[in-house]
């Protein structure tokens, strides 16, 4: 288990607080934890000095506008029907492949310290869509749990959505920072998920993220505490020995009961040209890539279809769960599953509207 207090001293150097946001619980909690850091009040982000526009700066603010949205998906690629909540925008873990490298270079990490409006929005959405599954998560523009022990912002979502049968609130992380969440009751359908890569890759490419075995150990703790977990094999890298790297990782999930796993996703590595410009020295870029309909570059279709088939088969054999594909084309779905996502029986809960199917 990582000692996150020492950890925060390394990754947070300055905190700016939007005027008017001082009274939120999350700010009070963070102030207690970060006593050695001065919280400077600003009217807005433009007042943060240029030398502090970087990932070691936190900017605490209220949300204005649409805090809840649909996962943007990708042109020509099938979206897994996911909704996103901006809670922590930006991330200091430093994965080499992070898409945010191409557009958040000079930005502080933004923390939206007022969770209540978003909880209410999700509740309204869930009530409007009664009978439909609402998968919703905070891990789209940052790591859901990296700063969560400091701000405890996941808790209001877990509690506030726990009575909604059709809402599956997911926190997705590359950390093992889960212990502050274990005792929360009721948990409802909350899911605590982990992105996984083999240690050989994670150690090189996932910056200061928790060790992969620590993430899996955290997944065990959350399951023991009564949550369901999820696993995201995304991005999967192709290299000559990819099977020797990924299969043992998958095998290490053998101890999880099928019912304890809400879902598993798989997505092969992809990049946008601006991201490639930022990470041109990474050896994984020397594989062969082709441009897809959404402008991202992916492994050749035939290659990734083969990888998906093998990974999904192994995952099914080990966990009993049929994984779904993240941001993939209809052609790939047909090649991997022989069908489109809404026709794959085991994935009905993920892609269609029946909440009962996702229940453990």
């Amino acid at each position, binding site marked *: 288990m990582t000692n996150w207090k020492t950890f925060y001293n390394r990754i947070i150097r300055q905190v700016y607080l939007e005027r008017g946001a001082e009274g939120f619980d999350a700010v009070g909690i963070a102030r207690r934890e970060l006593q050695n850091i001065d919280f400077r009040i600003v009217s807005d982000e433009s007042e943060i000095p240029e030398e502090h526009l970087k990932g070691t700066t936190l900017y605490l603010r209220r949300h204005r506008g649409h805090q809840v949205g649909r996962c943007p998906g990708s042109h020509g690629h099938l979206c897994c029907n996911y909704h996103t909540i901006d809670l922590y925008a930006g991330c200091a873990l430093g994965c080499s492949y992070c898409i945010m490298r191409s557009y958040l270079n000079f930005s502080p990490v933004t923390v939206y310290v007022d969770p209540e409006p978003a909880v209410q929005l999700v509740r309204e959405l869930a009530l409007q869509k009664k009978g439909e599954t609402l998968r919703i998560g905070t891990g789209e523009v940052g790591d859901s749990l990296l700063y969560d022990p400091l701000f405890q912002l996941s808790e209001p979502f877990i509690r506030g959505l726990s009575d909604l049968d059709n809402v599956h609130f997911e926190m997705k992380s590359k950390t093992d920072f889960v212990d502050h969440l274990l005792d929360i009751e009721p948990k409802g359908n909350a899911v605590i998920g982990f992105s996984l890569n083999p240690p050989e890759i994670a150690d090189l490419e996932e910056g200061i993220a928790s060790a992969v075995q620590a993430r899996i150990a955290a997944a065990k703790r959350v399951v023991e505490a009564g949550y369901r977990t999820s696993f995201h094999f995304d991005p999967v890298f192709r290299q000559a020995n990819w099977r020797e790297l990924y299969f043992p990782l998958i095998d290490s999930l053998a101890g999880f009961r099928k019912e304890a796993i809400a879902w598993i996703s798989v997505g092969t590595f992809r990049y946008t040209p601006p991201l490639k410009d930022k990470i*041109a020295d990474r050896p994984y*870029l*020397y594989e*062969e890539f082709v441009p897809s*309909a959404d402008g991202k570059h*992916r492994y*050749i279709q*035939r290659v990734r279809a083969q990888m998906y088939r093998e990974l999904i088969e192994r995952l099914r054999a080990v966990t009993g769960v049929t994984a779904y594909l993240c941001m993939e084309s*209809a052609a790939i779905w047909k*090649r991997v599953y022989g069908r489109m996502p809404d026709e794959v029986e085991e994935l009905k809960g993920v892609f269609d509207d029946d909440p009962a199917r996702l229940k453990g």
Partner: protein
Amino acid sequence: MRYMTLPDIAALSRRFDVFETGPACDSQLLKARLFTPLAVCGDDLVWGFRFLKAAGAEGISELPVVQIEPHGRLLVALKLENRTGRYSWKERYSIYTLLGELGESEDAESISLAVSGNAGFFAMMKRYACLPGHLKAAINEGRLDLSIAEKVCTLPEAACDLVFSRTGLSFSMVRELLVNLAEIRRRDGLAAGEITALVRDVLAAGDPVKALFLIRNPELSGLTGRFEAFKDRYTAQTGVSLKAPLYFEGDGYTVSFSFSTKAELRRKRETIERLEEGCDELEDLL
């Protein structure tokens, strides 16, 4: 303001002589003494080198000069030059180097704004300064942009020169060739001699860009080769055209043909029936 003779001005230090282009000095205005006075600071001529040169050519014996303070003198020169955003790479590098010499006496932020119109001048020049001389020269001459030069800086000068000297290549072709070469070199761990030899081979091909693309992408080349062989086997000289999706990404092959007689239609249909027999082979490519 005072007047100085041309020999006295010419004897001043020329380290501020960093502007290579700029508007020409109009001889009529020069003769009428209608021009900005030169800026001098101690032993340095800070600005006005163009006037000095033009005055000599016009036979003018002395020029007006204004003595300025040492603090911010480069900024004064830039303000007099008044070409924000229009300095060449060479000029920008000279300004950057000079600024390194002048140190604290200049305000870096104001200099950046005066040169580029934004705060990015120093970051950009730091990147430029790291490049080897042949790539700096390629940027100066407009043959490469900075981000591409950075990507290809592992290529030996000889390999780059071969590409630059090949006629008939557009800017984007040069860019694609160099980037692919740099990636191949890193991927395959080629020595300088090996990559230069590869450049020679590739440039000898009719379509060097395509030739190199195939080397950079062996699996895709394999798929393309298999598809072309399939087409030869099943559709050559049949009038039926078979197309694969771009980069073998997607679902569908496209078959097209035209006909004008019943017999022609029958022949095309027979070709398509034969295609059906080989369909597994096609499916395997996607």
